[in-house]
Every structure is written in structure tokens, then in C-alpha cells.
């Protein structure tokens, strides 16, 4: 069939003929869920006054909200085995990802690799991963507070004052420490992060998280240099994971998706410590 499917009895992901994630089947629901990498152009201001600040270490400010797709065609390789099924995606020369589902898990793992971010064009770039779905979230989403309570967020709105949003994108970004989610009366989509990231939901059913940035102008808040990290003379490469949960939004028999999310969040953020010991001199029997 034209759709490549990986998964298990709990969750299945379908990838379209262009190599993009296109649908998720879980918890008895099948919904359109896509994922893509994009990047904002970083704003370059003269830093003379607040309204003309550059995007930098202290500030996220896209240049006139200009956003670019990383590609329209993803090369994929699919590996299926008894323990794990994986889709290796290559978006371009500096963005790739592995989407995997372990055979006992009820969520999907997205291991992204971004960098070195090219700057030959003299433009700073702020890379996001964006999940789109047909969930009618009405501008409402939730972001966590240091891995604990979820705070309700509403697009272009603040609870405690009548806000005037000058920056449609940056004005709706919030700090995500571990989780961002949205739902409607039938379905729920949650993304767990493995580190603090900026994130938002700029349109219904859509969640975006900023995974890497490379900027060329200092934002004049004190550090005195642009956020342009390099290693061995090349732009920094960032690697990390997101975990996608999808399912019914109503609590089922008390075992709600949120409970599983909390447990997985703990086990992903505090995984086992790994210690390796050379055993060349011991057979398995001696070791035992």
C-alpha cells in the first residue's frame, strides 16, 4: 500500500508516499496526525529600543514570522523487528529523525538530529518540529510547570490582563519543561520533551516545539555575543527525543492517558544509569 505503517497492538503510525508521518491509530481512534520540521528566520534588529530587538540568547523573535519548510520530500528507510520498528527519515543535509515504536509501548519515540544549521545565507534560523492534527482544540492547549501541573494556555490571550500581541508567534510561545498537549471532546495529543524547549499551538490541532537555534546577532541583553554555537568550527549539532501520546481524551476506566504520560515522563527523564564492564576474561558461566 502507499502508506508505510509501523507499530504494535497499542499504537500504529502511517507514513505517506512523501515519507512524512500522516496518521496515527491508537486507543480505537484513527486520526490524521502529521509531523514536519520547519525553521523561523531570526529577527535582526538594531537593538536601539525594545521594539527592534534581535532574536538571541534571551529573546525568541522570528523575522516577520517568516517560516520555511525543511523539505517537501523525506527519504525513509524502514526496519521492522520483534522488539522495535523504526522509520529512519532524512529531511535534508542537517535534519534527520528516527521514529520508532517498541513492541510493548503505547507511545511513539521521535529521535531528532538537527545541525549544523547552515548560515551561508547570513540568516539566523530557529528550528521547530511541528505536529498537526485534526483535533479541534479551539486555541486551547496546555504546557507543564516544571514537570508537574499543566497550565491552560489560550492563543493570543492572557488570563490576568487584556494583552496586545505584537508578535503573533513569539507572543504565544511558552516554556515547556516536559510536556505540551491539546485535546477536543474525542481525541488528545501530548508530546513529552527530554529537555526544556519553547513551544506553542499556533493553530487548532497543532503543537510545535523549538529544538535548535543558530543566530547571528547579539540581542543586547548582556551576554555580548550572538547565540551562534560551534564545535570544531562547525555549527553545533543537537540530538534529542520527543514522545508522542495519542488517544481518547475522555478518561477510560480510570486509566487515563494522562496517568500513563506522567509515569513515562518520569521513566524517560530519570532512566537507568548504564555501567559497562569488560568481560573478555570471563565466560558467561564464570560471570554468573
Amino acid at each position, binding site marked *: 500500500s502507499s502508506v508505510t505503517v509501523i507499530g504494535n497492538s497499542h499504537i500504529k503510525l502511517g507514513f505517506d508516499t512523501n515519507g512524512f508521518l500522516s496518521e496515527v491509530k491508537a486507543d480505537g481512534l484513527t486520526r490524521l496526525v502529521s509531523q514536519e520540521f520547519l525553521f523561523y528566520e531570526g529577527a535582526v534588529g538594531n537593538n536601539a529600543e525594545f521594539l527592534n530587538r534581535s532574536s538571541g540568547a534571551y529573546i525568541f523573535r522570528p523575522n516577520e514570522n517568516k517560516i520555511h519548510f525543511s523539505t517537501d520530500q523525506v527519504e525513509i528507510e524502514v526496519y521492522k523487528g520483534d522488539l522495535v520498528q523504526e522509520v529512519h527519515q532524512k529531511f535534508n543535509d542537517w535534519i534527520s529523525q528516527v521514529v520508532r515504536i517498541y513492541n510493548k509501548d503505547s507511545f511513539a519515540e521521535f529521535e531528532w538530529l538537527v545541525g549544523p544549521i547552515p548560515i551561508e545565507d547570513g540568516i539566523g534560523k530557529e528550528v521547530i518540529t511541528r505536529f498537526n492534527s485534526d483535533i479541534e482544540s479551539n486555541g486551547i492547549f496546555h504546557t507543564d510547570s516544571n514537570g508537574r501541573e499543566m497550565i491552560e494556555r489560550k492563543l493570543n490571550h492572557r488570563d490576568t490582563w487584556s494583552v496586545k500581541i505584537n508578535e503573533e508567534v513569539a507572543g504565544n510561545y511558552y516554556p515547556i519543561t516536559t510536556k505540551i498537549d491539546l485535546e477536543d471532546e474525542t481525541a488528545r495529543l501530548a508530546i513529552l520533551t527530554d529537555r526544556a524547549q519553547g513551544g506553542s499551538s499556533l493553530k487548532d490541532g497543532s503543537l510545535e516545539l523549538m529544538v535548535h537555534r543558530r543566530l547571528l546577532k547579539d540581542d543586547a541583553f548582556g551576554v555580548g555575543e550572538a547565540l551562534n554555537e560551534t564545535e570544531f568550527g562547525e555549527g553545533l549539532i543537537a*540530538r534529542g527525543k520527543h514522545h508522542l501520546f495519542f488517544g481518547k481524551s475522555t478518561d477510560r476506566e480510570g486509566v487515563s492517558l494522562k496517568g500513563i504520560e506522567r509515569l513515562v515522563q518520569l521513566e524517560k527523564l530519570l532512566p537507568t544509569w548504564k555501567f559497562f564492564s569488560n568481560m573478555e576474561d570471563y565466560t558467561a558461566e564464570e560471570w554468573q
Partner: protein
Amino acid sequence: DPHLTFMRETLGIMQHHDAITGTEKEKVALDYAKRMSVAFRACGATTRNVLNQLSVQSKDNVKDKTAKYVFDFKTCALLNITSCPVSEENERFALTLYNPLAHTVSEYIRIPVPGVSYNIIDNKGVTLESQAVPIPQPVIDIKHRNSTAKYELVFLATNIPPLGYRTYYVEKLEGTEANKKINPLPKAT
């Protein structure tokens, strides 16, 4: 104590808002990273001593408390770019998993290895199911990633006790044994 205190003092430095938010100069960020890696190495000595003692005490009625075998219990800081000298260079190695949580966990483990045919047994001698998956080319292409690993060996570690550990023995298979293991399935591009 001096090792742990070094880690305490290092984490004291990491409370600074720059260390948390990344609003420091790049050289300062690299200095933070260097201090953290020195502190982890310092604590490596502590964990090695503890784990060696534990592995002695786990044997019943052991007379002498000195560990008969002293194992390395090395940490691989470059697992985040899928690289680990111990699992890449040795055909036999042990992997000890310490669970820092207060409840029993199971975890899918991924070990960087150069080949595809390995045998994994747990502390009861039970052979575990495993699967080799190729490391994505963009990861292999990361410049200055000095690693011979071409695959990740995946297995499911189950019932790791709260604040406890389990150890697994991993052995590369040769010859006919090796052929029995399923190679990674052909890729559907």
C-alpha cells in the same frame, strides 16, 4: 566524600541562571560542560566502589569482604551520539543498569555495537531476545564521532528493582551461532 563534594560544588555552580537558561557566553557554557564531566568522572570512582562491594555482598556467606572480582563499571558519556568504547571494542562485556526510581521499571536498552549477532543473558542465565538495528547514516556521519559502531543492539530489561540494579552479560556470537541470529531486515526505502 571528596568526590561527592566535588559534584555538589559543581552542581552549586550549575544553579546560576546562565547555566540553567543558556544565556552565558559559549566559552562559559563549555566550561560548565567540562566541570560536569570532571564531576561525573570523580563520582565514577564512588559508584565503582559501591557496585563492586554490592556484587560481593550479593554472594551469600562471603567471608572476606574484599571483592574477588573487581569490575570496571564504566559509564559511556557519548551514548548520546551512540558511541561506547567498551561495547564496541570487546566481544564480551557486562551491562549494569541502576534504577534511580522508587518503583520497579522495565526499559528498552540500546547498545552501540559493530556487528549484529550477540547473545544477552540476565543474572539468572536466561537468554534475552535482542534485535540489531542499523545506526542512521546522519548519526554515523557526525564529524569527530570516533566510533566503530554500525548497529544498536536492542533488548528489553525488565523488573529492575527500585533504587536497585540488574546486570546483563553480552557476548558476540561467531560462526554458525552468528548465522542463526536474524540480521536487520532488508530496508524498504
